[in-house]
């Protein structure tokens, strides 16, 4: 996937308008930071781009080799993480990643999974059940879930919430690496994360 296009996205929850007439074009190597107050639709926008929610009006297109695809057909190229993304509590961290690699059709060795866990700060904890993880550790595993298949489009919703200082370093590393080969969209209000932006999108609460 080389580009992402949002064409006049409007989304209503019943009578409440969350997103209104939003258009955006993102290309490889770009980092887009979406800001806005609580309820302005940042997380909803990322869910729409991931194909987890349909817009009321407008369309999202993933562009690969000059052809436009809906997100549903490009999920193999999309990585999404959010505070409300839940993985399987009765599986270990390693088993979660093995499971999602298998369902995605990603060939990855156990050693590579262990390396990924170490990269997100969970070295030596891959054999523990997710139910025993702290909220910060769970959030780190969400990074591993999103990065597992090396997506061309990485969607990060509140990426540093629940993380300690080393978690901010992790985010900086992830964004820097993603910038080399893909696109990144970050939904945040954290001042430190705004600095990653090549494009800044500010959402206001629609009336």
């Amino acid at each position, binding site marked *: 996937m080389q580009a992402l296009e949002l064409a006049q996205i409007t989304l209503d929850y019943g009578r409440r308008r969350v997103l209104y007439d939003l258009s955006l074009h993102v290309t490889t190597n770009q980092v887009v930071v979406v800001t806005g107050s609580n309820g302005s639709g940042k997380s909803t926008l990322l869910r729409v781009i*991931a*194909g*987890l929610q349909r817009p009321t009006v407008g369309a999202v297109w993933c562009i690969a080799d000059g052809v436009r695809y809906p997100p*549903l057909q490009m*999920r193999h190229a*999309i990585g*999404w993480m959010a505070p*409300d*993304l*839940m*993985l*399987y*509590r*009765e*599986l270990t961290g390693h*088993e979660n990643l093995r*499971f*999602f690699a*298998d*369902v*995605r*059709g990603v060939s990855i060795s156990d050693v590579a999974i262990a390396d990924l866990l170490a990269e997100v700060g969970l070295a030596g904890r891959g054999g523990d059940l997710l139910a025993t993880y702290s909220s910060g550790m769970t959030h780190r595993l969400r990074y591993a*879930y999103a990065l597992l298949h090396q997506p061309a489009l990485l969607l990060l919703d509140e990426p540093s919430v629940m993380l300690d200082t080393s978690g901010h370093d992790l985010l900086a590393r992830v964004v820097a690496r993603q910038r080399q080969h893909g696109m990144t969209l970050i939904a945040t209000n954290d001042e430190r994360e705004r600095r990653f932006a090549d494009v800044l999108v500010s959402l206001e609460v629609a009336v």
Partner: protein
Amino acid sequence: MIDPLLWRATRAIFLRELRSELRNRQALNAVTLFAICSVVTVSLGLGPLMPSADVALVHAAFLWVILLFAAFTALSRVFVVEEEQRTAAALRLAAPPIAVYLGKLCFNLVVLLGLTVLVTVLAIVMLHIRVGAWDLLVGMLLSGALALVAGTTLVAAIIARSSSRGALFAVLSLPILIPMLVTAVRGTALALAGVSLARGMAPIQTLLAYAVAMFVASLFLFATVWE
């Protein structure tokens, strides 16, 4: 020929369901207790029935009613738990919809087959049921379980996101299941009465045809329901 990636994803989903269930045993415990309580209660209340022309039909109806309600308890869980624990989004984003359907269908089939063996053995022992044709009985139970799972797995996906899941599952499933239940009861009664496999093949064929029809329809509809 099945796509290797689809097969791998289906297998992973089936094994994940199995592993999760073996670790928390929520569905297994609930269904097993329900099945044991039902059989014991009826056996204590009724006692052994006197031989008559209708006794095979009564026993067969009793067997399938228990299996039906145990299925209502167990089979919707595969999708309901994904929504309750909010893991559905992660799965939606990662797995092909068909693999999700096939993996959960296989898991439901394993659960129902285990349940069928448990309920049947308990019923035979506690109600002193005489089985006239074992081969036909096994054929009926296998094809009936297949039809029950094929008929309910898609409905489980439909109701998973609604608020009153339990009631809705029964309400939506029952009209779909009535034809197969009637066939299963009558076929099982033939097996208990001792009709030979060759003469009792019609209900098995009907149940298998029903299962195939529901399976194919579910394959077409599941992606729309799941997404």
